[in-house]
């Protein structure tokens, strides 16, 4: 009977700790429209797959009467489980226990699961819901953050790291998500900032709500800190699960191959793109005309919409798509879109995901604000990332590819493996109007009918250069293809480059223009 008694004792102990901060605190959490840490883990992982570690960990703070307080599991749950049968490591901060504040043992639990994830080469998911540092634990709490940031950094590019912001994440704490690959936020629930509204009000006299300062929408639309936006925790978990299906579990494997299915026929590539290069269309329709099941998983949908990034499958294999979006800001490259694209290119490169680039851009966005915001430095990130990437790089020039934009968008010159162009492609140093104004300036100025002469010269330039054949004649384009042939060419390119090997020169690391 002694064994039974001990088992019973374990059960009782567990039951008590599993309640976290207690029923009242849980009620409060629910009143905020939030789930508890444990509910979140259960919702995200496969049923019955979660194994919890360090349930019995206690804090060991002694100052400020902390020795009289018990904080169940020290306010964070760690463990591992599976998502669609793929193993993941996970931690979730428990806001019901001391506001999810981070003390020494709390941070040790997090770093323990981080070390485990890195050693086992499995994805790490962190659910953040914390008031910040546990002030009573002083510098030990700061040390804890530092240990987390260090691990985020050394794990970067080896295992996928996913951050989910389901509550406050303020002060130094925000740097963990910022160091990870993907950040998920939920409307009205996620709040991220370095200094909160109260500090800003006291120091600067500016009044702003938490939501307007660092809510989910702000980080999805303005700052670019978040990659996925959703309206509820439920929707957020679905997004995470979907992401997991597209990415490999670490940098030495490839994403799982799923069954192939043809794209939906309602997306007819011949009918999506207008011939007139000044007219818009939604490039996501072109992607849907190419990918398996017309299933495209967009990343950073609300930020810098002039470039579209995301995952799709080609013949069952994951591919990363980077596409100029003529529907938004004519698809120009600018500071924000360059940052967005460059980071995604590096993500794909780190995790063995081939990159398919769809090109249709008029160039870079002109303006004092852009120049002063450092469009040179930010734009250079795109060149750097494409040049450095050794995964298969496949480019399709749909329509415009002018000037520096042509070079930047995975051109042959940055070592694209395959460059295809549609017959509608215009590969030239700039648009016909701009070019004619410069090249034929004298003729236009000295003509009796400058406007007529300009039109004539623009037409001349269009006929001669606004096509894919000049570049094809130099071998910069491998093939000029019909839009409906695109999927076939891409499927072959992906298959043919499955075992691509490129050795880069030995170095410690390069210096990307951050």
């Amino acid at each position: 009977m002694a064994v039974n008694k001990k088992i019973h004792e374990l059960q009782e102990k567990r039951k008590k700790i599993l309640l976290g901060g207690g029923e009242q605190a849980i009620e409060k959490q629910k009143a905020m429209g939030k789930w508890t840490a444990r509910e979140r883990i259960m919702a995200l992982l496969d049923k019955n797959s979660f194994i919890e570690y360090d349930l019995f960990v206690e804090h060991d703070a002694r100052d400020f009467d902390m020795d009289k307080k018990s904080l169940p599991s020290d306010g964070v749950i760690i463990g591992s489980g599976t998502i669609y049968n793929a193993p993941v490591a996970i931690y979730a901060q428990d806001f019901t226990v001391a506001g999810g504040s981070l003390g020494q043992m709390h941070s040790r639990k997090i770093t323990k699961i981080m070390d485990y994830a890195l050693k086992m080469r499995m994805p790490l998911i962190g659910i953040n819901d914390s008031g910040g540092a546990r002030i009573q634990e002083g510098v030990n709490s700061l040390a804890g953050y530092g240990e987390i940031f260090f691990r985020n950094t050394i794990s970067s590019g080896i295992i996928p790291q996913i951050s989910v912001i389901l509550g406050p994440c303020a002060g130094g704490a925000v740097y963990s998500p910022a160091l990870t690959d993907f950040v998920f936020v939920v409307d009205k629930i996620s709040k991220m900032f370095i200094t909160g509204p109260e500090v800003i009000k006291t120091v600067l006299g500016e009044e702003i709500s938490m939501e307007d300062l660092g809510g989910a929408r702000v980080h999805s639309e303005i700052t670019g800190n978040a990659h996925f936006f959703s309206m509820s925790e439920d929707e957020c978990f679905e997004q995470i699960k979907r992401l997991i299906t597209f990415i490999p579990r670490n940098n030495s494997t490839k994403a799982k191959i799923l069954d192939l299915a043809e794209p939906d026929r309602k997306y007819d590539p011949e009918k999506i793109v207008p011939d007139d290069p000044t007219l818009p269309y939604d490039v996501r329709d072109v992607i849907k005309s190419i990918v398996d099941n017309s299933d495209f998983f967009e990343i950073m949908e609300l930020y810098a919409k002039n470039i579209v990034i995301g995952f799709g499958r080609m013949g069952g294999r994951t591919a990363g798509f980077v596409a100029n979006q003529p529907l938004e800001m004519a698809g120009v490259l600018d500071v924000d879109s360059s940052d967005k694209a460059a980071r995604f290119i590096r993500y794909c490169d780190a995790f063995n995901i081939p990159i398919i680039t769809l090109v249709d851009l008029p160039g870079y966005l002109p303006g004092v604000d852009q120049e002063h915001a450092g469009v040179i430095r930010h734009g250079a990130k795109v060149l750097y990332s494409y040049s450095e990437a050794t995964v298969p790089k496949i480019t399709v020039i749909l329509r415009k590819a002018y000037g520096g934009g042509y070079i930047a968008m995975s051109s042959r010159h940055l070592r694209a493996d395959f460059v295809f162009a549609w017959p509608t492609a215009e590969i030239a140093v700039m648009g016909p109007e701009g070019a004619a104004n410069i090249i034929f300036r004298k003729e236009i100025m000295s003509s009796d009918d400058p406007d007529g002469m300009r039109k004539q010269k623009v037409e001349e330039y269009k006929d001669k250069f606004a096509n894919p054949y000049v570049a094809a004649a130099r071998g910069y384009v491998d093939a000029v293809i019909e839009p409906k042939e695109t999927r076939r060419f891409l499927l072959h390119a992906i298959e043919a480059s499955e075992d691509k090997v490129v050795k880069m020169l030995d170095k410690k690391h390069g210096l990307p223009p951050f």
Partner: protein
Amino acid sequence: MKKTENLGILNINSTLYKTRLSPKFLKRKLYMPADLKAIISFIPGTVLDILVKKGQFVRKGENLVILDSMKMQNGIKCSVDGTIRKINVNKGDKVSKGTILIELK
């Protein structure tokens, strides 16, 4: 498909593109050359002291205002020689970054 609604025009290298214009683009501030005669706060804070009076002649590099911010006393310096034309703040005022504190003539 409502994708072609609310389109604006964007001029890139003399070509006019029909496209959606982003809120950021529409809200961008037009460039104004810096006015050296307007002394502005380079940091938000509280005016701790005003060291000059209206009509006083001041030299380039002189401290005009002491601004308390980020737990530091910051001297707001004069960027050109000139005479104080107008003082826009009082001791104890909270000012945001870029506020014109003093105008010179």
